[in-house]
């Protein structure tokens, strides 16, 4: 009984926090500034409420409903990463270009692994034979693995973005920093929970809720008011091309390298 009460309490808490975030953004008139992120939150809230209704009034359909949309829910989390990417590199076209190349490389690599895995996985062959017939048992079996894989990819994308932000010293405001930290906590803890799974015992079923709650609390703190990224200062003086800059930098690096060489081998 206490388990059910606790689960219900956590569930209603998360819904309240989501609604609070959406209300606060609408009230503060910055919902449109982060439209992709708030669309994600709105989807999660709507999904939770609809799931509650289905569970209450059509319990026999709940499993099919939940697992059918779970794949969509997991995938739609990429909206948060998209929003972060969009906001951080808006004013930095050079850094944006490098980020795009690295993120594309990660996605291509993932697709390659998926295709390779699909070719060698007998269960995919069985699925193909059944013409992708919606099979609840197969979905139930594969969903945690699918979610874990997606979370790992999300983590890789987020780490790449953070690494480039640090490398280019791009100033990040409180809102975006909160988005990164909150979603990073969520996917990190979720991936851990999926990997450790049954090893955690009865704690397992609460870890997912706790990780999402941690994300929501982080977002409530950092997204309570609109604090965008600082705008870059307007630079004075004539512009020059990147090729000239890169040539000069490479030249200086070579000078240092040869200086060290001469020091070691006079």
């Amino acid at each position, binding site marked *: 009984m206490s388990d059910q009460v606790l689960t219900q309490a956590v569930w209603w808490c998360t819904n309240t926090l989501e609604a609070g975030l959406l209300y606060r953004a609408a009230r503060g008139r910055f919902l449109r500034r982060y439209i992709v992120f708030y669309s994600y939150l709105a989807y999660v809230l709507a999904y939770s409420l609809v799931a509650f209704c289905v569970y209450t009034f059509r319990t026999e359909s709940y499993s099919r409903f939940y697992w059918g949309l779970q794949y969509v829910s997991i995938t739609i989390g990429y909206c948060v990463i998209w929003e972060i990417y969009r906001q951080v590199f808006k004013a*930095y076209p050079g850094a944006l270009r490098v980020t795009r190349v690295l993120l594309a490389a990660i996605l291509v690599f993932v697709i390659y692994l998926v295709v390779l895995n699909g070719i060698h996985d007998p269960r995919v062959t069985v699925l193909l034979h059944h013409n992708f017939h919606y099979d609840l048992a197969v979905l139930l079996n594969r969903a945690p693995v699918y979610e874990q894989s997606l979370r790992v990819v999300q983590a890789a994308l987020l780490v790449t973005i953070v690494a480039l932000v640090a490398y280019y010293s791009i100033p990040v405001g409180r809102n975006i920093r909160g988005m990164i930290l909150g979603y990073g906590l969520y996917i990190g803890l979720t*991936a851990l929970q999926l990997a450790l799974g049954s090893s955690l015992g009865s704690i397992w079923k609460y870890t997912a809720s706790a990780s999402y709650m941690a994300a929501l609390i982080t977002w409530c703190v950092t997204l309570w008011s609109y604090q965008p990224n600082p705008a870059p200062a307007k*630079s004075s003086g004539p512009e020059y091309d990147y090729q000239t800059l890169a040539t000069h930098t490479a030249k200086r690096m*070579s000078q240092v390298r040869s200086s060290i060489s001469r020091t070691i081998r006079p």
Partner: protein
Amino acid sequence: MNHLFVYFAAGGAFVGVLLFWALRAKSPALGSQETPESQLLDALEIRPQMMAHQIFDDRDWNFVREAAPTEERPLFLRDRKRVALIWLEEMRKQVAEVMWLHRQAARRATDLSATLELQIAANYFAFLFCWRAMQIGIHLRGPFGARLMMERLLGCSRRLWQESEQLLASLGMPRRVEVTVVEK
């Protein structure tokens, strides 16, 4: 059990990195101040080197070993080690300044070449790796003992540099930055 440990370590590291970054990154850092482009190219100059080759030249050490009293040898080694580390730190600061200015300008460049940028970044990290190895070598073995190790390391980094050039060429990406350094 091993894979659980790997997942746990990876997950913990991921969360740790995010927390470290979020708590460390405050509102506008030093890097956000824009440097006028007209000053940038002038600033990308390496300052004249002190007589760096003399720091690692073992002729001084040979002389001290032969001519100086025994009790003065550790003093000589300690002082020479300190000078070597100061020189190394100076090198790092110069390179860091060059790279900082480059990153400040490149992040807003509309005609940036991602390949070239990644190449410059790779070279910078290779330099940092060599620099750190050199620092550890000097700490452990002194400036004269570290020399042989550094020769091998430089040879290795040169091979890596050449291989990355070949790889880029094989991918059809010509090396657009031609650099010549006049050996004195």
